[in-house]
């Protein structure tokens, strides 16, 4: 696991590399191995999507207030369904703008998963496995994208998460540190501390000094951690030096565009996502938090949908106008749904039946897949398990669900749990 001495760059080699402007690459270059080495071959299956955006509704959005209303059952909610641009499909009155582009969206009303606690469910939905299943640290979808469709030499990281809440469900698991997300906490501020103080030469001087002073510790302690550290620094330096980094600055957008997306964290996150897709980032997650409405549901949902509706609608139409929607898959989801009946004024977690929405990348819009019962409590048609869901996304991305990855302990595993049934209707 440790770099043999002759793999560490000598000072001269280091300077040579630095002079050629590839200091960052060389910072990674002396890192021979990851904890688990993924298969050499990258994904080869035919990909419909070159990029993926997940609009992540953290806390769990109530399906019966958004995309699967039960107007005949008074206990299921107070919000009314409205007609959409597609005859026969109704969604919540809280999403009037989105109702006008529902012909670009396929609603899946039959998600049925098994984790009801936030962290476990976030791990479940982001990785496709139960937390700790088989004693394996499973990679998140973003990390899989980074590994399978990202470029290790790209200036910007392949995986960006615009999220207030960060935890291991976003993590790279066995794919290792280089597939970690770059988090953006506040999309209006972009990435903090991106500019180096002083001149580029001064910075290069410091980096050279750092690399030389690092070698003693790496040698004496034979620590893989030195490699992880150098990987992260290498990526950081490359990003600092890239012209593409201006994608993180949404202040360069005209005010009219910013107004259309919404001047709030989610709207700004969607706008930032569009800029990042244009800069060749492969996976962007945009978070809209606070769907965990145990105590008070209706006012909170009204408020959240007021932010969601313009943000998501503008995002999809903007991608379409820029020609990006054809090969970008966009998924709207949370970690679970919420109980269709109220508990007091609120709704609890509910994984047994809930909704997601798929858009772009050849998804046939204006259709509903799956069905819940009359009270939104159980799935009656086409249940979608977490592995079905993951396999569907993998299929769009051209990531094979059959490919085996060998872990450090020699065990072969796959990116998707066994017996997945992708939602083929999405493409009909």
């Amino acid at each position, binding site marked *: 696991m440790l770099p043999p001495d002759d793999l560490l760059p000598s000072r001269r080699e280091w300077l040579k590399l630095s002079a050629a402007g590839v200091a960052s690459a060389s910072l990674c270059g002396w890192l021979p191995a990851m904890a688990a080495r993924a298969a050499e071959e990258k994904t080869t299956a035919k990909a419909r999507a070159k990029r993926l955006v997940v609009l992540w509704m953290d806390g769990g959005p109530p399906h019966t207030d958004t995309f699967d209303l039960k107007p005949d059952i008074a206990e299921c909610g107070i919000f009314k369904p409205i007609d959409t641009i597609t005859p026969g499909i109704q969604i919540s009155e809280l999403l009037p703008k989105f109702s006008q582009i529902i012909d670009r969206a396929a609603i899946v009303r039959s998600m049925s998963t098994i984790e009801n606690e936030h962290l476990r469910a976030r791990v479940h939905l982001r990785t496709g496995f139960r937390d700790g299943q088989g004693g394996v640290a499973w990679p998140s979808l973003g990390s899989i994208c980074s590994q399978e469709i990202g470029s290790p030499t790209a200036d910007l990281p392949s995986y960006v998460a615009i999220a207030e809440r960060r935890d291991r469900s976003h993590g790279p698991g066995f794919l290792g540190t280089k597939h970690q997300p770059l988090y953006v906490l506040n999309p209006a501020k972009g990435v903090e501390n*991106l500019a180096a103080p002083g001149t580029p030469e001064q910075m290069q001087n410091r980096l050279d000094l750092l690399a030389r002073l690092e070698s003693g510790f790496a040698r004496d302690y034979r620590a893989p951690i030195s490699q992880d550290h150098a990987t992260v620094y290498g990526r950081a330096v490359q990003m600092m030096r890239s012209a593409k980094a201006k994608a993180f600055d949404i202040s360069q957008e005209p005010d009219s565009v910013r107004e259309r997306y919404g001047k709030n964290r989610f709207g700004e996150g969607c706008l930032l996502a569009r800029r990042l897709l244009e800069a060749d980032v492969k996976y962007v997650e945009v978070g809209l938090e606070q769907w965990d409405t145990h105590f008070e549901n209706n006012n909170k949902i009204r408020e959240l949908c007021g932010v969601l509706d313009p943000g998501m609608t503008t995002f999809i139409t903007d991608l379409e106008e820029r020609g990006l929607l054809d090969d970008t898959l966009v998924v709207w989801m949370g970690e679970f749904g919420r109980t269709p009946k109220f508990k007091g004024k609120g709704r609890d977690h509910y994984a047994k039946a809930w909704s997601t929405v798929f858009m772009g990348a050849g998804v046939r819009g204006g259709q509903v897949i799956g069905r819940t019962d009359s009270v939104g409590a159980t799935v009656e048609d086409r249940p979608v398990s977490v592995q079905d869901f993951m396999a569907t996304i993998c299929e769009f991305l051209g990531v094979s669900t059959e490919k085996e990855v060998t872990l450090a302990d020699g065990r072969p595993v796959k990116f998707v749990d066994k017996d997945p049934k992708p939602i083929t209707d999405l493409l009909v």
Partner: protein
Amino acid sequence: MATGYLADLPRKIALAGLAILMLAGLILAGTLHAEAPSPAQVSPLTATELAEQIDRHVGEALATAKIPASPAADDAEFLRRVYLDITGVIPPLDRVEAFLADKTADKRAHAIDDLLRSEEYARHMTDQWREHLIPSTAAAARRRHETGIVWLEEAFRANRPYHEFVRAVLTADGMQRDNGATTFLLTHQSLDEATDRLSRVLLGVQITCAQCHDHPFSAWKQSDYWGTAAFFSKVKHQYERIDKVEHYGVSEKGDRKPLMSPPSFQETPPTFLGGVKPTLDKDQPYLPIFVDWLAANDNPYFAKAFVNRLWRKLMGRGLVEPVDDLRLDNPGTHPELLAQLAEQFRQNGFDIHYLIRAITLSQTYQRTSKPLDGNQDDAQYYSHMPIKVMTPYGLHDSVQIVMRLGDAPPPPPKEPPPKLSDEEKVKASIRARGQRDSFAGFFKGEENPSPVAYEAGLPQALRLMNSQEMQRGSRVVAFLAKKSPEPESIVNRLYLAILARHPSNEERTIALDHIQSHAEPTKALADVTWALLNSTEFVTIH
């Protein structure tokens, strides 16, 4: 190892084996309760004696596995490690210089005792335990935490025995303004949330999955889950509004609504793990009875859970992993050692200082992190100390320790110290924590991460390289130059101040070369400061 082993077996055989294990587990669990071993049979050991026992257990396992042990860490490696492990920060320059110059034989033991008495120890323990006891949920964020944090600080400052600490947390009764220990039950909104977290933290068991179904791969049943949950069934959040200010509290008495129950709720009488149902008075609180069971001599989980968590924090890896998965079919790497540590922790009155002292005094703890050819792949026999990663709090506080060298010395503490009201204490705590919390909040990864997992991402690298606070190296250099302006002396003391050791000859040469090739020596020395703060060695505990 167990899962790997089982994975290699045909599934049927594996399942049959598991069934036998589970059955054995049930029988054993039953006997543990029926015939508790008399505690008087084992006499208490001193911390030094227990340290010897640690080395004996670890040494025997190493010998059996034929793995050589690395030699002892030198004074510099030991001091930095024990500072970071006990107080969460690197040792300040003056302490490093004094310790390296000290010739007394028992200076390591003295250093450990000093650190356990320090304010930084209480702060560091509080950082860990507020994460254990306060959920990071939106609902918990709506309650005040400060009084709970101040309560934790006081508990660790006074080295409150662990069982009494837990009793105070679980049986807290009253309003938060009067009793900070109410904060923990107050930040849990539902019965399952409290059961999940507290069983995981205090018992070191994962019964969460049994909430909805019998756990397929361990002995936990739904009745275990809801039987434990039932002890929390009388907990009620209290609320009052006085002069337009909202106050919250916790009580098992009164007629307010109990914690919410999830849809999976199953009515079960209060039952201890293992199946014993205590006789309870329905009109009296349940949790005191639960705590009696926790702290009882024959409780098979409570002491072990704490010992295993502390061991993992200090040694990088739990004796049982995952750290919160104690069960009979997951005995871990050194089951006899874990049992003895737990027994002695109990025998010594659940004294947390005692346990830390025993572990850090052991040769096992004091080995270098530098591997040998024969042990570099070992990750479970403690042949050498694993390299751990600084927590975000540790990183923040350690950068401060270095950067403050350039600051004017703080005013001497007032004698006698001013008597602060509770309100003032809370305010002072918030002031002191504000900056640390925002720094740590930015870098904090998952809850309860492995101590050896490197989780730093791009934001941390960018911050350590580019932020304004990291550009103050020249002030540190100016401070060090006051004593001796020679570049070599400054380089030497920069190493002591940042990495708590002298530079190697090779490193000294690299640094001096850099300074000589630079027009402005002060700026070149600031570069050295910057490089050391951005090094792998700085962000790790070795």
